[in-house]
């Protein structure tokens, strides 16, 4: 049985201009089991965001191979990658990335719009997801009518709505005070504990990283520690 996520000697080189190259990942190998909760840490420029982008199928590695549930992502077409993002991955961002002037419900429905699901199922699933993050009564609110913590919970509901096996959270608490940040982390922890969703979390803060079962440190494009 292959690992849930398997990275094999990943390299990513950005061609900034014709003569400037940035070698963001220099051979990263990593395995994650299903249901794992991994915190990725490291200073800026260490390659952790690049790794997350590859893992999130938003980008493809320059060299090396990356498997998700045994499927080699690095060889898929753009369209297939979009399908994987839709079905297998939920994203949570530091700045929430909700559509402005769009209700919480519509925001949560967004991923389902890009999968073949009928309207009534779409509504039910979006409403369920909002209920799970405790925002059912605010589903008609626009993002600017919600607090930062509530917006992030809407983002979590959006990440959950297609029941993906993997959630990628890029500094999910970075824009929140420590108390709300803690709430968000408890929600993520709960998802990991009860629904066995694999969570990969990027963070600076050791307090936040403590919620994870495993901490991987990046520096200069390589993994320096894994515990």
């Amino acid at each position, binding site marked *: 049985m292959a690992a849930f996520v398997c990275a094999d000697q990943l390299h990513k080189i950005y061609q900034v201009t014709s003569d400037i190259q940035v070698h963001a990942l220099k051979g990263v190998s990593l395995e994650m089991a299903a249901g794992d909760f991994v915190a990725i840490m490291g200073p800026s420029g260490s390659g952790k965001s690049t790794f997350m*982008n590859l893992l*999130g199928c*938003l*980008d493809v590695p320059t060299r090396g191979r990356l498997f998700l549930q045994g499927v080699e992502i690095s060889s898929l077409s*753009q*369209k297939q990658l*979009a*399908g994987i*993002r*839709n*079905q297998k991955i939920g*994203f949570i*961002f530091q700045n929430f*990335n*909700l*559509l402005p*002037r*769009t209700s919480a419900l519509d925001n949560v429905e*967004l*991923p389902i*719009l*890009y*999968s073949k699901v009928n309207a009534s199922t779409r509504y039910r699933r979006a409403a369920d997801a909002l209920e799970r993050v405790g925002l059912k009564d605010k589903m008609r609110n626009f993002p600017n009518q919600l607090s930062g913590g509530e917006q992030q919970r809407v983002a979590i509901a*959006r990440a959950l709505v*297609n029941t993906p096996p993997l959630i990628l959270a890029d500094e999910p608490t970075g824009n929140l005070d420590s108390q709300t940040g803690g709430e968000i982390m408890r929600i993520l922890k709960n998802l990991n504990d009860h629904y066995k969703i694999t969570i990969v979390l990027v963070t600076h803060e050791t307090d936040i990283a403590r919620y994870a079962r495993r901490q991987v440190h990046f520096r200069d494009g390589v993994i320096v520690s894994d515990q």
Partner: protein
Amino acid sequence: MNILMTVRVALKALRKNKLRSLLTVLGVVIGVCAVITLVNLGSGAQISIEKAISGLGTNLLVIFPGSVTQGGIRTGYGTVTTFIAEDADAILNECADVQMVSPLVTSAAQVVFQNQNWSTSILGADTDYQRIKNWPLALGEFFTAQDVKAATKVCIVGETVADKLFVKQNPVGQVIRIKRMPFRVVGVLTPKGQTAFGQDQDDTILVPFTTAQKRLVGITHVSMIMAYAVSVEGTAAAQEQIQNLLRHRHKIKKGDDDDFTVRNLADLTSVFSTITGILTLLLGSIASISLLVGGIGIMNIMLVSVTERTKEIGIRLSVGATSQDILLQFLLEAVLLSLIGGTIGIIFGMSITSGVSYFTGWPSPISLYAILIAFLFASGVGIFFGLYPARKASRMNPIDALRYE
């Protein structure tokens, strides 16, 4: 994502920017409205002009005697003397599309009244001539069938002749001398003015063609025959019927040239139709420029919109939209803008057309063709000017788009 969903997403996006969408749509509305109005009014003008021209006598057919070839020498028009009044009767009786005929005998002579004299053209005609030419009398009455039958010495003078000979007297009832023969004036024609070539149509005297044949010229044939078709459309058919009839009557063998020529004014109508057609096209093209400007407006707004919504594009890509989904969404926004604009423009254009035709009395055929063209053109504008921004949106890198502030 299916098309219907994409349409709803696009509509939602347009609603979020009501004023901007409205102003963009306005550009297309004005363009389509201008195209519809000008094309409709143009074809309305075409119809009025055609009507006016057919009033000039487009039903008219003039049959000239042609040339005969004697020993290899072609003698030119008008040398045939086989054209007789019976040909005219036969044309009237046997050609279904001919309504009226008049044999004509042309001549010129000096006319004298008391101490005045004037040289003018004398036209021998039949009683229908007046109706064929649609030429009412100012004074008196036209000569009668009886006059034609008996070759009476009566005449009708044109306005110029009346002025020159009678100065301020009433010509009706007076006796003038044509080639020293006394003719009683029975009527005066209303002034018709000059022909296109500067010929004074009022400088003429009409007499019964029999009188002209027997008393003035001394011939038994006629100079030409004028026929009037039942309708403008029937002119071509009448022309063919006359041709067949005359070939038969003149015993012209198959393959030999006609000894006559039939001419009509249909050419004139077609020239005017061409002119008004060109005008309509010209007006339409000028109007399409405004449609083009409207299209550029759409493109402009869509480009701004794509840049402004970079983050939205990034979010959509991250939750699983394919670049095709993004392309379709932005393209549909542009097409919807132009279709909404097109529909409103068509309604406005038709209202303006009806309004103008109500106040000016011009005919305004609501051309389904113009509407269809405008509609297709509007959606074409949407696709054409929406494609570039939509492609730009669909080619965004999701990582950069998400990071965009």
